[in-house]
């Protein structure tokens, strides 16, 4: 009975999306007065970056997919691919307008850009002033797609697919879009465009803390997997995870260096510090493994590298290469402790360490930006504590706390409500069988042929 109800619900949701799409008229180019020139170099780099960030979602799928048991690989790949489709549509219909559309009290955009009305092929006077407005919109779309993807790590192997779809659509609308507005939109309350001045170059708060806190809420509401922790099999395909992590590293150059919105010096700085921080953190994790487990591990090294990429994200356009090494070593140590000791002590089942890596790494990165940021790298940024401006550190901490509380509370409520209405978790028998077969009637691997 519950199933039938859910199906009807999803069908209505789908119809709503389609009707919404067809009733909206595509906008002509935006009319604003100041004539801004499109720069071909900037536009080319931003479009390439957008494609690179798009690749990160399937990369994440293989990173996570390799870490789950073989009976659940398709469920993880499918969730990531569904986000690619679902959020892409949400974004052009109304998501972009909520996040970046004309401001309402610094909290959210209004709906006047729904269906990309007024979002045209000439530059916007604030968002990427040298690229077509739609290029900026598309770049941001890829961020909106991957962010709910990160949360999958916390509820992998036990959340029902229908509930996942409903949760993701609501979460992206009620959590991601507002937080993106606060930090990056014109007049957003947390950011540097008329807000309190928190630095977040490429999404430490918007993407990683945001997703990480939702992941913690997911782990707490859903509870542990059957058999956790003793009876959970090891990762079924580590080479997939390594391939995924390597593709994430590659895509992250688009994520961070693309966030300068142009082919310029800041982009190159972001490129250099992104690579450096990932390397420092991967190395740190290997050394920690050497010390505490007597052998460095493949999974440890890729986990460290991803943590380094997470931590450098908010800082990429504001710190120099020595700052990147500090941030990378710091996140290696902190995330290692959080995943190895803290998680074991607290006993929650964050299946693939979405909170332990993205939440904790994101928090460290955002705070570390307040330590190592320097105007010598980016005059449009700010100096951090180590460059004589302790006030910036405090601003960073405030922005981190606000994001943590908002994301955790709203995500927690969303999970609870969806659980009440349609059930969040697969039945125990379904979980034992595996979500590939239960939710999709498919298997990732055949026994014969």
């Amino acid at each position, binding site marked *: 009975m519950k199933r039938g109800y859910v199906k009807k619900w999803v069908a209505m949701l789908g119809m709503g999306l389609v009707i919404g799409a067809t009733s909206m008229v595509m906008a002509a180019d935006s009319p604003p007065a100041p004539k801004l020139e499109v720069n071909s170099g900037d536009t080319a780099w931003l479009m390439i970056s957008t494609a690179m960030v798009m690749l990160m979602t399937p990369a994440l799928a293989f990173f996570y997919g390799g870490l789950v048991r073989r009976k659940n690989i398709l469920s993880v790949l499918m969730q990531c691919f569904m986000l690619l489709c679902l959020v892409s549509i949400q974004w052009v219909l109304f998501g972009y307008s909520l996040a970046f559309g004309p401001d309402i009290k610094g909290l959210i955009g209004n709906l006047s850009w729904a269906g990309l009305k007024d979002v045209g092929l000439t530059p916007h006077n604030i968002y990427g002033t040298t690229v077509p407005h739609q290029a900026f919109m598309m770049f941001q779309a890829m961020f909106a797609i991957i962010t709910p993807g990160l949360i999958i790590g916390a509820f992998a192997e036990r959340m029902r697919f229908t509930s996942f779809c409903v949760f993701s659509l609501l979460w992206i609308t009620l959590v991601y879009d507002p937080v993106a507005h606060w930090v990056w939109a014109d007049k957003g309350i947390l950011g540097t465009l008329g807000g309190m001045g928190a630095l977040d170059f490429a999404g430490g708060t918007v993407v990683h803390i945001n997703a990480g806190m939702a992941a913690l809420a997911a782990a707490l509401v859903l509870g542990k997997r059957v058999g956790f922790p003793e009876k959970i099999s090891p990762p079924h395909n580590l080479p997939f995870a390594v391939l995924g992590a390597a593709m994430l590293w590659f895509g992250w150059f688009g994520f961070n260096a693309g966030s300068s919105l142009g082919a310029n010096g800041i982009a190159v700085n972001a490129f250099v510090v992104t690579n450096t921080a990932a390397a420092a953190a991967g190395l740190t994790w290997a050394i920690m*493994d050497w010390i505490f*487990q007597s052998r460095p*591990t493949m*999974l440890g090294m890729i*986990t460290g590298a991803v943590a380094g990429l997470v931590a450098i994200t908010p800082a990429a356009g504001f710190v120099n290469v020595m700052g990147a090494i500090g941030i990378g070593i710091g996140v290696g140590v902190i995330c290692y402790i959080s995943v*190895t000791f803290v998680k074991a002590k607290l006993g929650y089942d964050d299946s693939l360490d979405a909170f332990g890596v993205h939440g904790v790494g994101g928090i460290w990165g955002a705070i570390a930006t307040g330590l190592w940021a320097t105007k010598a790298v980016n005059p449009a940024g700010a100096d951090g504590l180590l460059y004589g401006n302790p006030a910036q550190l405090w601003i960073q901490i405030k922005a981190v706390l606000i994001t943590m509380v908002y994301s955790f509370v709203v995500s927690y409520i969303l999970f609870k409500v969806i659980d009440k209405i349609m059930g969040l978790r697969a039945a125990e028998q379904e979980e034992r069988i595996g979500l590939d077969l239960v939710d999709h009637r498919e298997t990732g691997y055949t026994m014969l042929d």
Partner: protein
Amino acid sequence: MKYIIAIIQPDRLDDVLDRLTSKEVHLVTVTNVMGRGRQKGIAEVYRSHKEAGSLLKKIKLEIAINEAFVKPAVDAIQAGARTGSVGDGKIFILDLMDVVRIRTGETGSTAIG
């Protein structure tokens, strides 16, 4: 006729097959299996979480064989598989009632090799 089932360490397979070949025992079926005995496994570590899985990877060999070859085959398996530590495995020898070669319909000891 006997049916020999041997459970051995995966890393001893090549050696066992070489020794069987040298005793002119060519027909053998090999499967990857999981099992447990008194041996403790090599604990694997994933993000510092130790997986001391209770089941270990082993190799199973199955050989249908005429009486004259039983002793040489068992000796070959034991010589190839033995390392001297716990977990080297076991050899089971069963009576085999009949064999049918599918292609020709031959039965009994002529069908076996």
